[in-house]
């Protein structure tokens, strides 16, 4: 059985693969991609599969080890139920119990969420990717195993699901087919949040069964807490990188800027996503140029974790989420800064500002602000002067979900970009109603096996469709250079990968980057040409 129309009651059935993506089901892309032929998703060879269960859709991002014996399988099922019990308890899950219970209990099955979900839409309507499908698998298990008379009434109440190892293994995989963008929740008339339910499933697997994608856990939060950054950059390596950054600033602009580190009592502690240090140092440089030329009293930190705003715990695990954000709080408190400013990283905004709001307590409760707001103040109040004609090319803006839908930071970045980019145009829809880049919830950093192919073809396809539609047919020629501004490191990574997969730089002249690069490119006190049309 491998069908687009999988039914929940068959979710636990023995089969090699429940669903296989058929490229002909995927919606067509607009001009100039009408004749674009997608590359089929490669199958995972047995050697790479290496005992992992990929029976959901043949895609491998979360490694679910296949138990060897029936007894082991039963033990895993029992452990899953134990974890589910904890997920429903105040002691173990006070962090999300209220929204979780509310979302579990009150779905009226109207399926309004399905129309809002880019994964479901761009898969061509594959049933397993319907937001309700995933949530209902969990609901049925809970109804059957945690409600009085649940098993007896299963058929009547719609709790007819077999709870076996395959059900659990597939549910773990299915939790990682959602971007947690919460667009479904936004349109739900009840306010039910399927994104939250997906995250709670991820949490159960991580916190009880030690199952989580390596990029998020072992290579993510664990590495960050051990070495200082999920990129593996140690405090010593960071200082070496900074030498390069300072030299590069001089080469690009002629300015001699010394990036401040560990300045006690500074007004601002700026925290970047450390991915910028490696992939987009121009973003670090641009922030330094803007803050220095504006005369701000600011600093970066070289303390463990203090130089990396990343917090992948947000995507899968409350304990790891809290551990990392408390490290950020500790660093800010130790430096005695007046406020923490979060650089261009959407999920870091949410972890540090919104989640941190409930866990940076007492003296650790240092005020936190979005860099979008700090930058708006500098530009709109003319603390730095800009010449918009330097950005005389078509620009569109991607809205990171965590910054917009989850935090309501919508206009500051728009006011800035409208001031510095004469050819700015919005995507449709945008702002609080945006579509995820397709790399949300950690997907952008998952680069192994065949998962990236799925990421480009399904969730990323909607964003690529939006990007193309933001420009006119004439503008879509490769000769007209265009810029997709993504003020978020993870989104930027995803958009880079999308543009590469769809060959959009060569085929349509579409480039990407952050907001600060555009600002520096327009600054009258900086030599012209900071932004280079060099796709990387």
């Amino acid at each position, binding site marked *: 059985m491998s069908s687009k129309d999988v039914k929940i009651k068959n979710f636990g059935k023995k089969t090699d693969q429940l669903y296989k993506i058929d490229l002909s089901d995927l919606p067509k892309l607009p001009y100039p991609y009408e004749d674009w032929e997608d590359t089929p998703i490669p199958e995972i060879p047995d050697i790479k599969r290496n005992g992992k269960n990929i029976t959901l859709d043949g895609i491998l991002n979360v490694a679910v080890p296949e138990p060897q014996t029936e007894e082991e399988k039963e033990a895993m099922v029992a452990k899953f139920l134990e974890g589910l019990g904890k997920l429903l308890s105040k002691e173990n899950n006070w*962090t999300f*119990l*209220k929204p979780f219970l*509310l979302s579990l*209990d009150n779905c009226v099955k109207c399926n309004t969420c399905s129309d809002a979900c880019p994964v479901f839409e761009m898969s061509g309507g594959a049933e397993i990717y319907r937001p309700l499908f995933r949530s209902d698998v969990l609901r049925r298990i809970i109804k059957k195993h945690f409600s009085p008379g649940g098993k007896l009434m299963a058929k009547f109440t719609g709790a007819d699901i077999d709870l076996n190892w395959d059900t659990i293994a597939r549910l773990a995989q299915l939790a990682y087919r959602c971007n947690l963008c919460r667009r479904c929740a936004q349109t739900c*008339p009840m306010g039910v*949040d399927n994104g939250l339910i997906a995250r709670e499933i991820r949490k159960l697997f991580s916190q009880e069964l030690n199952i989580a994608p390596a990029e998020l*856990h072992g290579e993510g939060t664990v590495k960050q807490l051990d070495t200082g950054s999920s990129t593996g950059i140690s405090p010593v390596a960071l200082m070496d990188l900074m030498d390069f950054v300072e030299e590069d600033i001089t080469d690009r602009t002629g300015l001699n800027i010394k990036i401040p580190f560990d300045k006690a009592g500074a007004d601002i502690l700026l925290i970047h996503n450390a991915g910028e240090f490696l992939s987009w140092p121009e973003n670090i440089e641009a922030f330094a140029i803007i803050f220095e030329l504006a005369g701000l009293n600011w600093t970066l930190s070289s303390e463990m974790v203090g130089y990396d705003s990343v917090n992948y715990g947000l995507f899968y695990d409350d304990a790891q989420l809290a551990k990392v954000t408390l490290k950020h709080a500790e660093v800010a408190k130790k430096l005695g800064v007046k406020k923490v400013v979060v650089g261009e990283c959407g999920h870091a905004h949410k972890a540090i500002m919104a989640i941190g709001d409930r866990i940076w307590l007492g003296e650790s*409760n240092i005020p936190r602000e979005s860099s979008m707001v700090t930058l708006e103040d500098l530009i709109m109040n003319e603390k730095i002067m800009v010449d918009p004609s330097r950005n005389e090319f078509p620009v569109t803006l991607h809205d990171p979900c965590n910054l917009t839908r989850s*935090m309501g930071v919508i206009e500051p970045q728009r006011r800035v970009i409208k001031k510095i980019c004469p050819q700015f145009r919005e995507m449709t829809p945008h702002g609080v109603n945006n579509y995820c880049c397709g790399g949300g919830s950690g997907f952008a950093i998952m680069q192994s096996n065949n998962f990236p192919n799925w990421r480009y073809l399904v969730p990323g396809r909607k964003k690529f469709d939006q990007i193309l539609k933001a420009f006119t047919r004439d503008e879509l020629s490769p000769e007209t250079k265009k810029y997709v501004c993504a003020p978020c490191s993870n989104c930027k990574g995803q958009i880079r990968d999308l543009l590469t997969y769809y060959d959009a730089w060569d085929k349509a002249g579409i480039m990407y980057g952050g907001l600060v690069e555009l600002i520096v490119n327009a600054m009258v006190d900086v030599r012209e040409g900071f932004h280079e049309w060099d796709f990387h």
Partner: protein
Amino acid sequence: MYWAQILTYVSLFIAFVAMIAKALRYFRAPESFRWELYPVPHEKGRAEYGGSYLEELDWWSKPRHSDWFKEISEMMQEIFLLKGVYHNNRKVWTFSLPFHLGCYFTIGWLLLLTLGGILEVAGVPIASDGNTISILIYYATFVCGYVGLVLAGVGALGLFMWRASDRAQRRYNSPADYINLAAFVAVVTVALIVHLSVDPVFDTLRGYVGSLVTFGAATPPGTLMTVEIVMISLLIMYVPLTRMSHFVAKYYLYHSVRWNDEPNMRGSKLEKRLVELLNEKVAWSGDHIKTGKKWVDVVQESGNEQ
């Protein structure tokens, strides 16, 4: 006491207990991490585009301006016009709006019958030729009753047909979901037949409700009306046991989660509640969590993770 009266009392009691239990389930759930979702309607001057006070420079040092009128207005539009459904799922709205409006009118009808019953017991007859209050209640009951029953019936039938004919709906709806709607259709149909044939201005039913209020004996009102009373009583008992009573949860979904953007300030009551929660003991058995320790100890461990 007439046996149907006992049934009605039992139904009301069960419904009351079920509703309280439902509200307490959410009321007692602890403070959670922030998980709001924009637009948040009380964000003054920003709700229109989905903005928040986090757009303000040094937001923590400035007074927050909440637009409670806008929030109430949003709630009213949600409750009485089903604004969210209108914008995001017009097909459902076509049936859901009459159904919900029908339920509101029907609730109003039952309340007016109760009020009328009390007044009649107190010696104020409810009639078209009585005093002003009496006339007002007489006609309001008449209008609410028929409008409510017809709208609820049409809406429930439409929703039933939609759930039965739509492929996705058939997949995700259980027999109980269809029975819930069918029960509404059946009760409304019986009520309309009864009143159009034997009690067109609800005098008899008002008398019955009055007897409930005074715990007095009621004269059995005939077979047809007894059937209606039994069906309404059973429905009153049944609805709070199903997710059709989602209005309780919706309050919490919106106010405690979706629109809850209250920042935690130093020394606040919220902070005290959070400190207490950090002392909860954790039983998760993941390798990176030290089972049995307090939450605060678990998350303050650093380095050498497994």
